[in-house]
């Protein structure tokens, strides 16, 4: 029996969920169909409402939300009319859930065995104790975890992140549900672990003929896993259809721009960001919600939200201009220029780093030259951030030499000269934590200028505006507090603060990992432009291999505190010499590779 003949397991019609407080809708006009054995990818950036829709399929709304319209049918039964007891049997029994972060979703006070068995106790109370035990071991076996008593007696904190997610998956499949909602289940995991978890989910869905809704912001993961895709923007589904149609012939301008923002491991094109930000519930414009950010917008787009247009059977788009854009995505674009590297700016020489008594960096050698961008790549725990902090003087517990322009630096920033502190500037991962929330953007940047270029107020004010302009922010941003800015804008401010010191080396520590993909692309573009304009050197720390391809000249690969490979970006990507790099490359999902399969 092919998927097309399978019964529809999930049907959503005109679903509307409102905020209780203001009555503004979080999501509206949601239409979905998922058949048994089929995976639907629900794609969107943060705030698009994708998780709200996913949770609604379980008859659940987070506090503050309320279903106010439309209907959800699971196996043909409407959720709205279910009594509390029936809904409870549905949850976990018919529809189950794989959470985003098993670290917080598993109960820290209960043993793994208890958390698994209570699921079976609640939903298959009619079967015998032995049957349930057998089912539990069988399910654990399916996710490749040991079903031993020793394992079942463990607490969640005694498992690795990957194991925790496997436990959550086992829990979700334990009662043989018909529908599974996966809420970005691989977000916190390393690519290697992610690849294994995705494989497990795919195999289980296939073998048990489960209808899966896979909620994610990661287009590459969705391309690997999904049969159908629905793209959400600001609480609406703007385009849905078969996977190949969405990824090869996207028709909605948002989908097209989103795909252009995803970095490509093969490096055939540059990433392009999307300007502006998605509007929040209650603050959405008239007409199409995307029109303020759309190049193709016409008057009609500003007046009324576009209804559905079925371009091909099953490929539905909400856009007046869907026919007007070229069908093919441009596959080429400018790549980072091969820089003319100059003198050595920073040299890390035989550095060994420690955390207390833990040895975390082993004999590290790295150099960054003038006008060069070196990417430091590794999975979590590889020591890449510790190394970056050693260079910036934020982690003083190391031996060996770090030299700036040939001069050996003191270990901690306080011991270094003002000149050294000025030359090395650090941009932090999380722009929500790196700006003082009690200071305006202008005050933050002005303080930096005062420290390194003492001058009068007027002069400083002028230079603040200049700094903001360099990161493409308007001068009005100087009066804003960080909480009045979006994540991307905050990260621009953090970059502006670093640039205000006129450094020779910019250390960028996972600067885009807290941001949406469209914003990430915009920040990468900005950094690249800054390099071409000023000849700044950059140390770019990341776990995202595809991103490196678009920005770095050279790559240094780290794992477990050691450098395993380094060389020009192209060489490392096309013919990795270290086995570890090869594995990393093979496990990184990409849209292009998924479509070729």
């Amino acid at each position, binding site marked *: 029996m092919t998927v097309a003949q399978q019964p529809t397991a999930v049907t959503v019609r005109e679903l509307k969920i409102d905020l209780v407080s203001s009555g503004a809708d979080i999501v509206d006009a949601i239409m979905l169909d998922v058949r048994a054995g089929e995976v639907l990818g629900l794609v969107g950036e943060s705030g698009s409402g994708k998780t709200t829709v996913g949770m609604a399929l379980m008859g659940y709304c987070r506090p503050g939300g309320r279903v106010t319209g439309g209907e959800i049918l699971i196996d043909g039964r409407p959720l709205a009319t279910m009594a509390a007891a029936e809904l*409870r049997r549905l*949850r976990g029994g018919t529809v189950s*859930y794989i959470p985003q972060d098993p670290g917080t*979703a598993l109960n*820290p006070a209960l043993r793994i065995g208890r958390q698994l068995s209570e699921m079976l106790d*609640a939903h298959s109370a009619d079967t015998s104790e032995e049957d349930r035990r057998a089912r539990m071991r069988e399910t654990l076996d399916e996710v490749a975890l040991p079903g031993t008593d020793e394992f079942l007696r463990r607490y969640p904190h005694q498992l690795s992140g990957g194991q925790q997610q496997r436990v959550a998956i086992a829990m979700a499949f334990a009662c043989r549900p018909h529908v599974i909602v996966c809420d970005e289940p691989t977000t916190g995991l390393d690519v290697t672990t992610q690849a294994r978890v995705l494989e497990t989910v795919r195999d289980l869905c296939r073998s048990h003929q489960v209808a899966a809704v896979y909620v994610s912001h990661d287009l590459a993961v969705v391309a690997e896993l999904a049969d159908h895709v629905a793209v959400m923007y600001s609480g609406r589904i703007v385009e849905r259809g078969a996977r190949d149609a969405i990824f090869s012939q996207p028709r909605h301008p948002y989908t097209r721009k989103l795909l252009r923002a995803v970095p490509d491991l093969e490096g055939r094109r540059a990433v392009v960001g999307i300007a502006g930000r998605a509007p929040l519930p209650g603050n959405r414009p008239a007409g199409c919600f995307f029109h303020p950010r759309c190049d193709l917008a016409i008057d009609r787009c500003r007046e009324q939200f576009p209804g559905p247009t079925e371009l091909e059977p099953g490929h539905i788009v909400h856009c007046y201009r869907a026919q007007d854009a070229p069908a093919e995505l441009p596959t080429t674009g400018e790549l980072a220029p091969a820089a003319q590297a100059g003198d050595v700016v920073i040299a890390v020489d035989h550095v060994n780093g420690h955390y207390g008594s833990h040895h975390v960096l082993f004999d590290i050698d790295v150099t960054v030259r003038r006008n060069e961008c070196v990417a430091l790549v590794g999975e979590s725990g590889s020591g890449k951030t510790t190394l970056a902090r050693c260079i910036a003087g934020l982690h003083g517990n190391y031996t060996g030499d770090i030299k700036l322009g040939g001069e050996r630096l003191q270990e901690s920033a306080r011991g270094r000269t003002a000149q050294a502190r000025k030359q090395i500037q650090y941009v932090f991962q999380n722009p929500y934590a790196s700006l003082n929330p009690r200071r305006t953007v202008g005050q933050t940047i002005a303080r930096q200028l005062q420290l390194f270029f003492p001058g009068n107020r007027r002069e400083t004010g002028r230079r603040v505006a200049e700094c903001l302009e360099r990161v493409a922010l308007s001068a009005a941003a100087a009066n804003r507090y960080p909480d009045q800015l979006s994540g991307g804008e905050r990260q621009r401010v953090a970059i502006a603060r670093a640039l205000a010191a006129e450094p020779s080396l910019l250390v960028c520590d996972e600067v885009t990992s807290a941001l949406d993909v469209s914003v990430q692309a915009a920040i990468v573009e900005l950094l690249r432009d800054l390099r071409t304009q000023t000849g700044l050197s950059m140390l770019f720390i990341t776990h995202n291999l595809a991103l490196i391809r678009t920005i770095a000249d050279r790559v240094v690969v780290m794992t477990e505190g050691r450098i395993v490979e380094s060389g020009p970006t192209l060489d490392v990507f096309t013919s990795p010499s270290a086995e570890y790099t090869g594995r990393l490359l093979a496990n990184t999902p990409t849209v292009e590779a998924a479509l070729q399969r």
Partner: protein
Amino acid sequence: MTTFLLRRVLLGLLTLFLVSIVVFAATQALPGNAAVAILGRNATPARVAALSRQLHLDRSVVSQYTHWLGGIVSGNLGTSAATQQPVSHLISARILNSAFLVIVSAIIAVPLSIALGVWMAVRRDKPADHILSTTTLALASLPDFVIGLALALLLATNVAHVFPAVSIVPPGEHAWNVPKAVVLPALTLIIAVTPYISRIMRASMIEVLESEYVTMARLKGLPNRTVIWRHAVPNAIVPAIQVSALQLAYMAGGVVLVEYVFSFPGIGAQLVDSVGNRDIPVVQALAIIIAAVYVVVNLVADLLTIVVTPRLRTAGR
């Protein structure tokens, strides 16, 4: 875990040692003659000299301290300056009475507070929660002697004569044999600490009810009862344990006023009397005992926290 506990015990001992220095320094080593402070300015030089000898004030400060500390460690708390009896005789029965009062109050107050806290959290923002949380907030503001006086006005004198306003326990008798004498002081302590613990339990429970793992438990289709008592309460109880310990230690101070208000024959009323009499040896002993209760109760709370938190319990394995 063992090292953690050992560390806590050693820190507790260090705290007690420092406490003894503070007590000694505050009462005896400060400028001015303690004997004069005890006897008053009009005392005859002969009496001052005699008392000075009794308190060993003629020796150096350090030797006075070591002598005093040595006495306390070996159970010899000195001689009361007011009654000339050994301090231990004077206070041993009173310690038992106070301990009984505090333990009875705690046994009622702690479980009551936890149940109230859970109940309020589960009915969050419903009328019952609003009424209870406003009431507990108002009660939590009241100083304990105000609660005691209000109860005395209500239940012992002007409104209704249900309980005695003065807790008379015949000499040689223990408080647990005179239940009527314990009711009002215990009630005062319960009203003083219950609002506080229940509010902490409510807040902690609300946080846990909003956690991912409780959402997960609901999405697993578990019965509400299981979600609350198996998934939420064991995680929410840790702050309540810590606060209960603090409140229990606080009761050791609270008894001072409550016992004074009801003339309950415990260490609190004794402390007030001895302060009035300038009976330094008794005040020293009682201050040390009350501080020791604080240290011990906090140790027990740390231990309980470890027991109910798997992450701590299994650490180092």
